[in-house]
């Protein structure tokens, strides 16, 4: 083994070079940017090194709003979308007739363009001088006064954003969960039936533990995906997300770089590092929880 080590590293070199150039170096570079105070993009100069960028970002009300929005989005959409996907997958795996048709329908949002879907949501929810939108029409049947979901109160906008996110992430989860459910050996169900196990107990004691690795995979990737949300908000509320009060952390970073008030790579880098730390922490917590609850 000892003798083969240099050879082994040689084989790893191409992959390491690529990873180093396109993954490790940028990460380190962002770290460096975030510590350079008063960085000037045009002249590539800076005054000094310190934590000022972080303290600026952490005091920026737009950033705090973005953090609040992102956390709400994560906390609401990940459990809801995973739970709903699980229910739909269970239903899909128990129907026989037209299963392929249903699967196709449920998978359609996945192959649809985000912005196109955003447009559809706008039509459903937006109030214009001419119409209150389809959602308000339905609500009016129940005697609810019309609400402006796109330009109205914060909770209404958040609701639409969450609905939209859940809707857009579900197809992938359904796809993964349906195949996970299909891979559970049916003899387990037969064994449970022979022993008179109730449907609910079969689900909680057999099905769920069997697919738990997949569920946790979806939860972890769901958390990460939701923390990086940006295009969803743009699709619904346009590019000036700060004005709409619906910015996300990634949106804030983008605005700091290229937005109308942009041109501050140091602030953007600091925000990016903060996002990185948040995602890393949450993922570590997720993994340690999953160690306790996921079998195999």
């Amino acid at each position, binding site marked *: 083994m000892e003798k083969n080590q240099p050879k082994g590293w040689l084989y790893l070199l191409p992959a390491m070079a690529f990873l180093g150039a396109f993954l490790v170096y940028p990460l380190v570079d962002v770290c460096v940017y975030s510590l350079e105070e008063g960085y000037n993009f045009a002249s590539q100069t800076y005054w000094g090194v310190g934590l000022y960028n972080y303290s600026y970002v952490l005091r920026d009300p737009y950033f705090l709003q973005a953090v609040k929005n992102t956390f709400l989005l994560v906390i609401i959409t990940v459990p809801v979308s995973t739970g709903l996907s699980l229910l739909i997958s269970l239903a899909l795996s128990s129907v026989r007739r037209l299963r392929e048709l249903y699967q196709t329908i449920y998978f359609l949002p996945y192959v649809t363009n985000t912005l196109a879907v955003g447009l559809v949501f706008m039509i459903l929810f937006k109030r214009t001088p001419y119409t209150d939108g389809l959602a308000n029409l339905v609500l009016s049947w129940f005697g609810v006064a019309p609400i402006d979901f796109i330009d109205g109160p914060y909770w209404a906008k958040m609701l639409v954003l969450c609905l939209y996110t859940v809707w857009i992430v579900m197809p992938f989860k359904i796809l993964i969960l349906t195949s996970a459910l299909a891979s559970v050996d049916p003899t387990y169900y037969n064994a449970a*039936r022979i022993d008179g196990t109730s449907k609910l107990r079969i689900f909680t004691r057999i099905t769920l*533990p069997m697919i738990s690795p997949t569920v946790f995979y979806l939860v972890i990737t769901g958390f990460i995906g939701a923390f990086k949300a940006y295009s969803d908000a743009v699709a619904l509320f346009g590019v000036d997300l700060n004005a709409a009060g619906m910015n996300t952390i990634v949106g804030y970073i983008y605005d700091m770089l290229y937005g109308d008030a942009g041109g501050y790579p140091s602030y953007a880098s600091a925000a990016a590092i903060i996002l990185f730390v948040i995602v890393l922490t949450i993922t570590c917590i997720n993994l340690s929880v999953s160690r306790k609850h996921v079998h195999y």
Partner: protein
Amino acid sequence: MNVTLQNLTKEFPGRGKKQPQPVVAVKDFTFRIPHGKLVGLLGPSGCGKSTTLNLLSGLQKPTSGRIFFGEDDVTDLPPEHRGVGLVFQNYALYPHLTVKQNITFPLENRKGKEKLTKAQMAQMALEAAKLVQIQELMDRRPGELSGGQQQRVAIARALVKMPRILLLDEPLSNLDARLRLQTREEIRRIQRSTGITTVFVTHDQEEAMSISDLIVVMKDGVIQQTGAPQAVYDDPANLFVARFLGNPPINAFAGDIRGGQLYLGGEAVLQTPGLPDQPVTAAVRPEGFLPQADGPLRCAFRGVEVMGRDVTILSAHPDHHAPVIRAIVSAREAAAPAGDNVRFALKPDKVFLFHRDTGERIRF
């Protein structure tokens, strides 16, 4: 408790254009399993033995016919109300539960009056585990057990709820040769000590013969013969049964009955008084050959296989169905043949005659 299967038929619907006819997996199956016996359902794959087991367990519903457990008609009862213990071919142990949790799983399903306390369940699980001798493995997961140990856990799980009958689907097929011998003794011992009526399915005739009180030989969903293993071996009802039982397999020849004698390859080898002249299939058990210098059956000598206790003489005959005839003789009888041929006399009680076309037995 006796188990009675009455005219049981199971058809599976045909599939589309390729196979428009329904498939009959079990056809008019009538059999009575006496209380406390170990019964082996035996047959080649696709003969309907597993379907029969599934019908007994209730996992599948028969197309027609009735099933009785004692006096109770259980045909329309779902599996959970039948009180059967089923050991699956791949054991179907829940991989995320420990051995103990696997064994107590059926007990935890009980509701209402039957509900058990934790202590009762632990006690019952321990008793079942002791019966199959796995009490020291209770905290392991199935993935950490050998195949034989998994098998025992599966049996313990099936036994813990005190089933009225125990069903085993190919119980030994996932074990290696040595474990198979051990485990089949074990199954016999467990069955004896619990006295539970037990049905098991196998395609391995040796397995079925060695531990069953009764065997049921099936082919294409139809019972070919039932009875005690030795009785079926000594008196097969048709060529299929004769061929299926016994290892090495029986040697089948194309022969003719002429003038009350059996001719194989132009030589009269056996007296069959009173039988009309006809073409037959003559099958001779490997132990039915007696090497004799002037024996009537002349075969081309191919070699010997020495097993120590006895010797297998390999030879060939133009009218034999397979390239090699295996004759098992005791080491003393195995005289070296003179020249290229070996000559045998046949033991009449080891020779069975069958109709050439139907394969039905012709008794003489």
